[in-house]
């Protein structure tokens, strides 16, 4: 007898161009969604949640309702057609707010905290990091993120692309 596979029992409900219509409102997304049993439901506001925010930020993105229950999952944003993909990418950018570090001007470790002064795509920022070794995270081989005491996030998208002076300042944490 053929044994039952896990995937025969559990199915992941994916968002497709056929079952979902996203609309962009002022600063958020709403969704009209048809479930597999043909039931159509409207969600005035949905929340996007990346399941692999570091590894695949555009794949396996959950669409949640107001109560944080999953409505369906986006397998790959690019599968949804240009218009919807654009809306989703904009919504993701709103929900996941990251400063991109271009240059590190100053890092000083003091009293268990470190003070940073960096150049980001949003201009110069100064922030404080608690327990730097834990809050500076290397992702893969060439990326890194820093979270400051307030909860803001900063990303270095390419460590090897940093200038030497910047690199020297963060060497210790890598």
């Amino acid at each position, binding site marked *: 007898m053929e044994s039952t596979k896990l995937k025969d029992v559990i199915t992941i409900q994916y968002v497709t161009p056929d079952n979902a219509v996203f609309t962009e409102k002022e600063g958020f997304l709403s969704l009209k969604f048809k479930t597999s049993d043909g039931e159509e439901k409207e969600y005035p506001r949905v929340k996007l949640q990346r399941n692999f925010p570091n590894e695949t930020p555009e794949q396996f993105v959950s669409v949640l309702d107001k109560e944080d229950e999953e409505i369906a999952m986006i397998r790959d944003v690019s599968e949804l057609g240009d218009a919807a993909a654009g809306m989703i990418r904009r919504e993701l950018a709103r929900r996941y707010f990251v*400063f991109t570090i271009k240059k590190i001007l100053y890092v000083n470790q003091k*009293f268990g905290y470190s003070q940073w002064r960096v150049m980001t795509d949003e201009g110069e920022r100064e922030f404080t990091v608690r327990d730097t*070794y834990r809050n500076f995270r290397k992702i893969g081989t060439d990326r890194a993120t820093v979270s400051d005491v307030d909860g803001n996030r900063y990303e270095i998208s390419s460590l090897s692309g940093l200038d030497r002076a910047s690199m020297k300042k963060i060497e210790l944490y890598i």
Partner: protein
Amino acid sequence: MKFLKFRKKKTVRKAKKPSQIIASLPDGAFSGELITAFSYDLDLDGATADGSVVITEDGVFAFEGGSPVRSVLLSDADEFEYHPLVGACEMCAETKDGPVVICRSSCTNAETMAKGVRRLTRFRETGKNVEADGDSSRVCPKCGRRLRPGMTSCIKCANRASLVKRVLKLGLPYKKWIIISVILFFAGFAVSLLGPYVNRLLVDGYIDNEAARSSVLGGDGGAVFRGFLLTVLLMAALGLSTYLFRSLRNLSVMEASCGLIVDLRRLVFDKIEKMSVKTLSRRTSGELMRTVTWDTAQIERFITTDVPNLIQQTLLLVAVTVIICLKDPILALLIIVPVPLGFIVGVKVGSKFRRMYDKQWRAGSFSGSVLHDIFSGIRVVKAYRTEKKEEARYDDAIVKERDIEMKNETVFNLIDPILSFVLNLGTVLLLLYSGFKIISGAMTLGEVMMYTSYAGLLYGPLGWMTRLPRMLSRTITSLVKIFDIIDETEDIPDAEAAREVAVRGEVEFDNVSFGYDEGIDVLKGVSLKVKPGEMVGIVGKSGAGKSTMINLLMRLYDPGGGSIRIDGVDLRDLSQHSLRSQMGVVLQETFLFHGTVYDNIAYASPGASREAVITAAKAAGAHKFIVKLTDGYDTVIGERGHTLSGGERQRVAIARALLHDPKILILDEATSSLDTETEHDIQETLARLTEDRTTFAIAHRLSTLRNATFLIVLDKGKLVESGTHEELMRQGGIYHGLVMAQRQMSRIAPAKQN
């Protein structure tokens, strides 16, 4: 220099006060009495913006760059919400026409936004515009910089001198020993200064002395040899007394430091124990442990070793410099000239070495934690046959550690000799200079040897001083941490006239709201009245706020809104000791301390009779398994003791709660790990026990609550249903659904056994 200037130019980020925000807006930009205001820094598309929100009794108004962008009238909105995003946050409203995003901001403004929303919600609930509990903004009074969570004082503004003064006061009881140690040090030092001098006498008077040699050769050696022997003996005596003084000094330092470390640990530990759960949960237990052990040790070392050292080494430096100067100023100059150079190089290289070894230490601790991880999960490793994978993981870690170590050692061994050379450059100059003088007959060999020894004495304190900046910064770090704990104000204080009362057991929740984090309420306006002797069953999904209710009832936290009363008295007016002594609590996580079964049951009532403990154990159904243990009630349990199963631990915890006959009994999933039969037995006992005691019981297994006088159902922090089992079943709401679901489950269970 340019870099230094740049560092000075610091933008201090100040949290804007509502009044400042209002002042920056045009007149008549909003209407209604002001409730609060805050700034935000992103527009709805996530680009940076200079925005502000004004909340009034009419509505919420958002402005960007001074001009209005959005507004929601209070009358149009069902609810205002604060949502944390990733690296950002937003304020939203639920209106008749659907959701509206009012503003969005980076986390920099998260706290003020959350507080603003909370304040608005409280206003809408109560009609009063008050700062919610714990609302006092955590901003440094000096510089206006926002304080980090868990910090009461701003590190930047901490006055180091006053900190040091305060810490030195802690050392006062031991000043006798510290002073003695300094005196002994100088006694030893004086002796060691004599060393080179006697050495010179020895060399110049006997070893390298033509006159002495000729008198010995002339057969008249007796006096010379006697003098020689005496000098050698003197040297030996000097050496011996140096050791003696050193030992005595170490002993007196020991006397001070051993006493002081106990004092410090006692001080910090007592303070930590007095902290509220809310304050404690802002710190990890690892952090607290480090403060009690490591930080106190740093302070102790600072007081007993570093401060005396600072005095000693400075005086030493001055003394030796003066001595050499008096003897030969040119020589002194030669010795001292390379000193600043050596000092600068020493500090620079020192910080480089520190970074290097820091990295190595981290790699070492990483490979240690990998090992710990693997060993803790060794059963899983074996079960999935992943030994090879783990081997590779550990191998990676140790190879990395080795590479760093090898690199460090290479760098160290290249730089260190050069550094020593620079530091000792003075000695070379000295030899050069004195060599010429010997050749020209202006100086004796003994004198040269003496100067060399003095120069050596000089480099000791210098080397020590290059380590000074690092040592001071380490001490200040520890100081700030320790005073942060010592200065923490009690946030759940007993009222001034806290009442000691014998509780009857009437409990009332009056419109209670509470959230652990700013802006996110876990309980929303819960009201409930319980008469003495009643048993309340609390039902709801995980995260609905059940345990939170219990935490508030125990006054581990104070409610953000509303009040909780026992026998008509607000919890805040009761003494916490009298309150908790009349409560028996079995928490979700049963914790057993290291000790015997007896110790654990009698934990809150030390000295309880053996009979009382056995009775409580019987009531909790624990006696049954305890008699089977080899050592009975004397069996050692807890972390390093005999392992009890989950159900057994729970029964010990129940016995602990029952032992002192509490007036209010709290059972938070107290019987969840028990088999149904045992649970049933305990239920029966409890039912008889609960006659004159108020009981709060939380359970997922609804049959546990069958004896409850009435049940309440919580859903997302709101009390949605309440009544007896029958009433709720008739209502056909959430409770009904839960009961049906569980019946379904129990019907399937026996069918599967066949």
